[in-house]
């Protein structure tokens, strides 16, 4: 593990921000608390996806499969078989991990290029949605209703509002820390070489299948856990929302806008786009139907055109050049270190 990881782990700014966020439920009105919770969910989802899609450069469109498994499978196990949702969460995560491993193997076995990989993972995601909709035991098209959240921790209930907010905060911080750990471990170095040039990566001793699979399994399992928590938050498990490839597209968009392959990139994307989308819907949704999508789309296009490599790298290089001009003698600031 490189020391950058511990630098962040020991950083008072990092923990200060988390403590400040944790106070959210005490000050935010419920509508804004909802937006904040949603933002944290998407920070977690986009950061998890970033392990495969950003650091590893494998544009996986299969992630709705893992969210869906985490949400639908654990809910179905509870409702149909009475299996505790904590156990259901673990089972769903294992199933997601297995699916991730299979997808990685197919990718390796058939030497899929980036485009084929994206399309095949999309096909898997579509299949997943169709299977859920067509299977009565999984709730079918009408979805599943979880019992009311009474705050019974042992039953995977966290109490609506503050409790579930803290759960999502934990998951979001966890996802970011996993990213940071991966980037500062050999795995991150291997994944970045694989992303940039597979043949050359092999030539310096990188095992492509092994590292791609590890990344995919970590990402799939964590995504699945977020899916289970998301289901608990929503109470109504709607397959058209939680198992739909549209969800993956949102995740990919957030990670791309924020900065692919950076530990804090997807988080920045989520912090910008989720509140923007929600607030636009709240303000404009009533006046002219579809207008909020139009504005949202225009903002996304503008951000991507202005910062093609993502917001975070753009901000970092801005900051670096500003610091550079402030003290021309200074060493290259550590914030410009890769993956920061």
């Amino acid at each position, binding site marked *: 593990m490189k020391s950058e990881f511990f630098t962040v782990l020991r950083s008072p700014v990092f923990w200060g921000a988390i403590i400040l966020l944790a106070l959210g439920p005490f000050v935010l009105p419920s509508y804004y608390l909802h937006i904040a919770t949603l933002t944290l969910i998407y920070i977690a989802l986009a950061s998890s996806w970033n392990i495969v899609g950003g650091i590893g450069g494998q544009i996986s469109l299969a992630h709705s499969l893992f969210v869906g498994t985490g949400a639908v499978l654990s809910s179905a196990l509870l409702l149909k078989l009475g299996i505790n949702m904590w156990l259901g969460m673990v089972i769903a995560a294992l199933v997601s991990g297995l699916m991730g491993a299979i997808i990685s193997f197919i990718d390796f076995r058939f030497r899929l290029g980036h485009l084929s990989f994206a399309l095949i993972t999309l096909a898997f995601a579509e299949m997943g949605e169709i299977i859920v909709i067509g299977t009565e035991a999984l709730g079918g098209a009408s979805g599943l209703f979880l019992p009311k959240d009474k705050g019974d921790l042992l039953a995977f209930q966290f109490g609506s509002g503050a409790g579930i907010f803290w759960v999502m905060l934990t998951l979001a911080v966890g996802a970011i820390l996993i990213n940071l750990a991966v980037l500062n471990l*050999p795995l991150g170095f291997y994944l970045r070489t694989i992303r940039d040039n597979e043949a050359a990566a092999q030539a310096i001793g990188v095992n492509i299948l092994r590292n791609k699979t590890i990344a995919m399994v970590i990402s799939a399992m964590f995504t699945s856990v977020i899916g289970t928590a998301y289901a608990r938050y929503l109470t109504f498990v709607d397959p058209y929302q939680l198992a739909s490839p549209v969800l993956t597209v949102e995740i990919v968009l957030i990670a791309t806008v924020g900065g692919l392959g950076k530990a804090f990139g997807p988080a920045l994307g989520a912090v910008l786009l989720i509140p923007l989308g929600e607030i636009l819907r709240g303000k404009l949704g009533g006046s002219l139907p579809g207008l909020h999508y139009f504005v949202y789309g225009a903002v996304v296009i503008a951000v991507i055109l202005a910062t093609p490599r993502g917001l975070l790298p753009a901000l970092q290089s801005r900051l670096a050049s500003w610091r550079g001009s402030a003290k021309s003698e200074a060493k290259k600031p550590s914030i410009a270190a890769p993956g920061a």
Partner: protein
Amino acid sequence: MAILQIAGLTKCFGGLTAVNDVSFSVEEGEILGIIGPNGAGKTTLFSLISSFLKPTSGDVIYLGESIVGVPPHVLVQRGLVRSFQIVQTFADMDVLDVVTTAALSRRPMLEAEDYAGDVIRRVGLGGKERLTPTSLSLQDKKLLEVAKCVATEPRLILLDEVMAGLTLAETEAPLAVIRELNRQGVTVVMVEHVMPVIMRAATRIVVINFGEKIAEDTPATIVEDQRVIDAYFGELVDA
């Protein structure tokens, strides 16, 4: 002892036989040069030895074992590493990160980074640790190609035209690195187009033309060989 033996190696791409029944062996500790006109099959031969391509027939024996079908990353673990003729860069990774990744094949994270720093200074890229490929000159990229190989701590290193495109003066730096490595006991097989370089560096030379081995001898004898003159130097005189 022969560290590497090539036996009847043949590679066909459709109707084209790129490498045809080539056999030679590499002794531990030597610098073997492979030369031949453009399109002679040198790079294909390298890809076969380093397992990036599967031979149509024939065998590659490294340290007494056949390595046909062994994945390239496993060969790196066993000490056989190659460079690429067309410099293979990692667009979003700086020099230190790339060389660190190579060093990770033998060392844990923290040690790998320190060692990578050493290797970078040794090949003459000191001070350029944080540069990405876009801001490296061709010469620096070639040095990075060498640094990557060196950082894996190989026993046998296959260098594919690491001097191509460099002026004679610019070849001094990589050449010094290669000689230094060789003194430390690393066996080197190099494909090279820059004739004066290979004549000075190699202890033995194999000449390839149209996919076949046409000569194998010391540099001094090779330049006298009529077949070589016809195939290789003749071409240069005509050009």
